[in-house]
């Protein structure tokens, strides 16, 4: 159906029976057709030059059904920032909405639903169930139509707006509630999901008569005339790197918003870096302060296909930060949230303030802008939440070492600030060593327990004798055993078991030394050993003392099984000393076990102490330290 534009008279074609508004290609008038006839609703401004792979009359496929993009509108957020909404006519006759914002694409369809919440009852960050799915309210705010083109399935008046709420769901699902010009109205529900551009299989479309923006454009600062590169199409604000002026850069006309002291970005703007296999360009630098004290710097990174990321530096510690869907985070209790299968513990609540802006920023940032947020940690991860009345944003920061930052910039930039203290999400690198050495200690203890339980301490043989000092009047007979040499009766020893020989002697302030031989009766091989028994006691300055217990045990390795005889030769300074000998096998040596326990557990103990001190230092900066990490100067449990 072709009608004459009520404003300029040019031909305006309505290609579809159920479209209501058509933007005149000649004068940008919004032509509405209704049962009252054709009327003009006003004129739209020209579309802002946003880089987009979508174009009017491009064809594609989604869910196996073909579609054509027949209309487009640009909407403006109250904080600045523009996104595009494309109207897709499907071959099935259905209308779909393709939303495009910051490099992300969403396909939504209108869905009939009842019992939708009122706008006033929506809580940013709160959960709700819509159309049988769980969503989190990511944002609620009024939005305004800035420009439009093509054919639109509803009545669209230039300059109009509506109240909307964006809902983030699990597994990239997405929904919006559109409340119309008044927040009191019943909302319309649109449900869909985020898609990859390749999924839409777009082809064709008009070559846009909107000036195709270059991937990067150059502007002149109105204050100092300095040349500034704008690399991201979504850039709303620019801090002049030469004079510090904060500029509005969301249109062709660059406006001065505020002067600030010129600040240099520590990382030169335009520098490329590589994180997680993707290349980014550093396009902006924002310096902020937390709780009026902790300064940190956020470098805005841009990738044309992946969108925006952040590289944050605080006290010499670095994090690579990626935005996450609010629906991916769920609250477990007042100090714990869950994300990605992990439980994040609350580390701090903070109030943030922007101190300076250099380079680009994709929202209408202001100097002195304040927000509040919370940080939750599972080292090396930090889940951060920033919220205000209209939106909540979650992001996941990954701790990166200074060495990794240097590698990411291929040596072009090297951090120079030495890390101070322990960052909230700084990982303790030796945690695995503590774990494995701890497991080893447990295994060792179990081993000892098993050995102790299986140790039978079998008594094999006993003998006794009496050492006597001999007064020689004749030379010793070489054919007789020497004096004070004693032989036991034969006894049997089993193989594979240690041998414990316990000798006790009745000495008092004397010693008795012995040399022993365990002789195998069959092979005549023998094992030699020796030892000493002593006992000394007395009273010195009225205090009794004693030394030695009059006994000693010698442990021998397992010997071949068989019959053995023990030969014992004694020497003593006592004129006479009785002694007894007990031979046992399969004895558990407690002292040896404890010595080896000390050796085996040394890494666990040392690393455990190190880990304890590390964690204590980490949590000393938190107001929400778990009780066992509280230091004497720790913060309050401030909820």
């Amino acid at each position, binding site marked *: 159906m072709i009608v004459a534009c009520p404003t300029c008279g040019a031909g305006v074609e309505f290609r579809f029976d159920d479209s209501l508004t058509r933007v005149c290609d000649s004068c940008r008038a919004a032509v509405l057709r209704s049962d009252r006839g054709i009327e003009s609703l006003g004129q739209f401004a020209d579309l802002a030059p946003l880089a987009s792979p979508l174009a009017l009359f491009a064809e594609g496929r989604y869910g196996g059904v073909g579609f054509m993009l027949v209309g487009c509108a640009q909407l403006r957020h109250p904080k600045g920032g523009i996104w595009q909404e494309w109207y897709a006519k499907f071959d099935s006759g259905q209308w779909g909405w393709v939303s495009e914002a910051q490099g992300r694409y969403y396909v939504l369809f209108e869905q009939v639903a009842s019992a939708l919440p009122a706008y006033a009852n929506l809580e940013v960050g709160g959960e709700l169930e819509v159309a049988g799915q769980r969503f989190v309210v990511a944002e609620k705010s009024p939005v305004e139509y800035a420009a439009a083109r093509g054919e639109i399935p509803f009545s669209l008046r230039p300059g109009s707006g509506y109240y909307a709420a964006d809902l983030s769901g699990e597994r990239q699902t997405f929904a919006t509630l559109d409340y119309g010009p008044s927040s009191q109205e019943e909302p319309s529900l649109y449900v869909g999901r985020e898609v990859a551009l390749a999924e839409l299989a777009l082809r064709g479309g008009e070559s846009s008569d909107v000036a195709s923006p270059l991937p990067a454009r150059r502007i002149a600062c109105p204050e100092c005339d300095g040349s500034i590169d704008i690399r991201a199409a979504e850039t709303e604000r620019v801090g002049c790197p030469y004079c510090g002026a904060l500029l509005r850069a969301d249109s062709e006309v660059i406006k001065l918003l505020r002067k600030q002291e010129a600040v240099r970005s520590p990382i030169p703007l335009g520098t490329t870096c590589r994180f997680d296999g993707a290349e980014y360009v550093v396009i902006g630098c924002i310096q902020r302060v937390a709780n009026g004290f902790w300064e940190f710097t956020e470098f805005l990174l841009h990738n044309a296909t992946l969108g925006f990321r952040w590289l944050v530096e605080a006290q010499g510690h670095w994090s690579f930060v990626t935005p996450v869907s609010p629906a991916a985070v769920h609250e477990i209790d007042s100090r714990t949230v869950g994300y990605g299968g992990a439980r994040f513990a609350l580390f701090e609540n903070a109030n943030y303030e922007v101190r300076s802006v250099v380079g680009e920023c994709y929202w209408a940032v202001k100097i002195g802008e304040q927000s509040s947020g919370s940080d939750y940690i599972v080292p090396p991860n930090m889940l951060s939440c920033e919220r205000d009345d209209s939106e909540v944003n979650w992001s996941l920061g990954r701790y990166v070492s200074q060495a990794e930052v240097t590698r990411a910039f291929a040596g072009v930039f090297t951090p120079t600030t030495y890390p101070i203290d322990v960052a909230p999400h700084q990982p303790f690198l030796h945690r695995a060593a503590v774990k494995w050495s701890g497991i080893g200690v447990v295994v060792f203890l179990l081993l000892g327990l098993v050995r102790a339980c299986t140790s039978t301490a079998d008594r094999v043989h006993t003998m006794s004798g009496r050492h006597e000092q001999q007064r020689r009047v004749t030379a010793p007979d070489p054919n007789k055993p020497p004096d004070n040499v004693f032989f036991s009766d034969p006894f049997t020893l089993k193989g594979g078991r240690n041998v414990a020989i316990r000798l006790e002697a009745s000495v008092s302030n004397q010693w008795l030394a012995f040399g022993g031989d365990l002789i195998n009766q069959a092979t005549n091989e023998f094992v030699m050993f020796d030892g000493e028994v002593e006992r000394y006691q007395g009273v010195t300055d009225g205090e009794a003392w004693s030394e030695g217990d009059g006994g000693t045990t010698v442990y021998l390795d397992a010997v071949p099984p068989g019959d053995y005889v023990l030969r014992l030769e004694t*020497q003593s300074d006592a004129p006479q000393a009785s002694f007894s000998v007990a031979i046992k096998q399969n004895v558990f040596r407690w002292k040896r076990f404890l010595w080896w326990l000390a050796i085996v557990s040394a890494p666990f103990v040392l690393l455990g102490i190190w880990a304890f001190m590390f964690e204590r230092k980490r949590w000393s900066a938190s107001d929400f330290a778990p009780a066992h990490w509280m230091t004497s100067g720790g913060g309050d449990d401030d909820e």
Partner: protein
Amino acid sequence: MTNEPTIPHRDPPVTKAPSSWLRFAALLWVASGVGYFAFTTFTGRDGQTVEKDSVPASARNSPGGYRSFHFWHGGYHGGK
């Protein structure tokens, strides 16, 4: 118009903490200690180091010869 594929934003996974070389050193230390203790304790080889020898043939061939052979220990042993 380009159809350059855009990667849909997938929420990043939770990163595991990196490990240092110390875990290998700790594992080696502990495994060596546990292994050595287990081997010596369960095979009866946990005694002190002692000297071994054989009774010489001449003494061996005479009945009870080891009882009188004068190569045994001699001399002073310990004491204060």
